[in-house]
């Protein structure tokens, strides 16, 4: 299946999900059309967490609904779990859907059923017997930590609890894929962490492949292995989360990564820093592999004194990186030699008064 060479090399088998030149256009009367998804191609491999990030209106919701056939493509081919879902009828799709769980931004719990009833619903759809259903519901509620809420109704739960019920329901029939549609966007920061940890456990302990769409960088950073940045219906950047965070490239994405990374001083920060130092200001990249610390340790040997005036670290699922802003004081040539030494170890950028630090 991976004949066009776009498949990520680290996965052994066929991709679980494959989009080939998929477009979804909505006609909105009076002849005008909106292209929600525009010639998108990507693959998701078994066992990975694939994040899609973008501003609202970027087409993420449509994209994720194309995977389980809630939306149909205008053109292009979508293969999920070996089935070409773009060509299946609504009734044939049901079989594929039963292997894909979905979690929603607004939880979408059945108000007419209690927690246990909500979790049992997909099991009923899949034709499980009563005893099996009860055992599985109990198991799932244990997994999400809500065993004591089985008889509660949705309106009696907090947002985080509702989403945990949503996750238990999505995991009920042991799906191969979990689709997370802005699963934490309606939650406050502390419950967001709770739900993200749960998604991560579903991925790590149950081996479920997850596709998560979000506008929150936090979500991508804490659970995704790979990320696609979506803007105006197109995927404008795709790669491993660490790479895309530490080396942002394209315009649409800079604003996104920038919104999440508070690691470089703003012009206002620089103005404030200038009140305390006259030294040369530089930013130094920190990565797991760079040995910035040992270079800084030898500053005195160069006759240079340094002060850390700004900095920020960011952590992804499996790596961290950041940026330090230093004020260097000393004889002009000594400072220059010291900067050259640092440049040998890690990228260094000049900080100019009143200007943004470029990425």
């Amino acid at each position, binding site marked *: 299946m991976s004949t066009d060479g776009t498949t990520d090399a680290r996965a052994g088998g066929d991709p679980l999900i494959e989009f080939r030149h998929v477009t979804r256009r909505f006609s909105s009367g009076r002849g005008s059309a909106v292209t929600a998804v525009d010639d998108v191609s990507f693959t998701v491999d078994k066992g990975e967490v694939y994040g899609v990030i973008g501003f609202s209106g970027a087409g993420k919701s449509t994209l994720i609904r194309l995977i389980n056939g809630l939306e149909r493509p205008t053109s292009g081919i979508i293969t999920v779990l070996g089935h070409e879902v773009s060509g299946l009828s609504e009734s044939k799709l049901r079989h594929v859907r039963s292997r894909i769980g979905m979690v929603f931004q607004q939880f979408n719990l*059945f108000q*007419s059923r209690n927690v246990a009833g909500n979790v049992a619903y997909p099991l009923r*759809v899949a034709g499980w017997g009563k005893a099996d259903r009860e055992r599985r519901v109990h198991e799932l509620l244990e997994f999400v930590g809500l065993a004591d809420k089985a008889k509660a109704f949705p309106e009696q739960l907090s947002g985080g609890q509702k989403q945990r019920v949503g996750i238990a329901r999505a995991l009920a029939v042991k799906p191969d894929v979990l689709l997370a549609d802005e699963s934490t966007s309606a939650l406050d920061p502390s419950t967001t962490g709770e739900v993200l940890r749960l998604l991560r456990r579903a991925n790590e302990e149950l081996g479920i492949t997850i596709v998560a769409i979000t506008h929150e960088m936090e979500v991508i950073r804490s659970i995704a292995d790979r990320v696609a940045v979506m803007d105006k219906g197109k995927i404008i950047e795709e790669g491993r989360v660490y790479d895309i965070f530490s080396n942002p490239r394209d315009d649409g994405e800079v604003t996104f990564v920038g919104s999440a990374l508070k690691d470089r001083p703003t012009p206002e920060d620089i103005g404030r820093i200038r009140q305390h130092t006259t030294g040369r200001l530089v930013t130094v990249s920190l990565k797991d592999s760079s040995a910035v610390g040992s270079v800084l340790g030898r500053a005195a040997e160069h006759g240079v004194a340094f002060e850390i005036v700004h900095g920020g670290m960011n952590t992804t699922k499996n790596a961290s990186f950041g940026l330090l802003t230093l004020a260097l004081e000393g004889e002009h040539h000594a400072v220059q030699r010291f900067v050259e030494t640092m440049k040998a170890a890690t990228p260094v950028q000049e900080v100019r008064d009143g200007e943004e630090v470029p990425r």
Partner: protein
Amino acid sequence: MIDTYRNLDWDYYGPELFDALGETIQMVVFAFAISAWIGLTLGLLLYTTRAGGLLANAPVFWTVNFLVNTIRPIPFIILIAALQPVTISMLGTGIGNTAVIHAMVWASSFGIARIVEQNLVTIDPGVIEAARAMGASRTRIIFTVILPEAFGPLILGFTFVIIAMIDMSALAGIVGGGGLGNFAIVEGYQRFRPEVTWLAVAAVIVMVHLLQILGNLAARKVLRR
């Protein structure tokens, strides 16, 4: 006033009122037992066949919508008269309580259709999407998601319809039917005995209050608030 009722010939009016009440209940129960199903089906059709609905189908939607809009606004007294040929061909007679029940079924079915539709559109489309995402069939979604999710409001809607049907049944006298309406007009109004009319009024009021209380209790239980 009280004397008036004290002097009322209860041996005559008591059984008469009781019979009239029985006939009203009979007409409403029979008509509702039929129209509830027709109305529910039509309402579900309106809701599911609309654009973006589960069974989106423009021709079906527009046909049902047109039928509902055509029949529902006809004043009931005119509908009874207008339906005469249909009533006679279906039941062999155009008069009596059965003829009234027939007209009530027509009027209330289309009324219920609209009320069902109005209650169903308030369902969060997200829960239907969730059920679709789980692989539930459309039939299953209708019976296990759409109807249960709207059950509370539907109870209130049906209570409203039953009360409207008591109103309809009061016109039965027009085609020789009985019931409280006929009792009030024939025994009270036409014999210049307003206190007899008020007996019928009181019976209707008690009936409506009881129904509304029952409806509210049931809806409250289903909605858990």
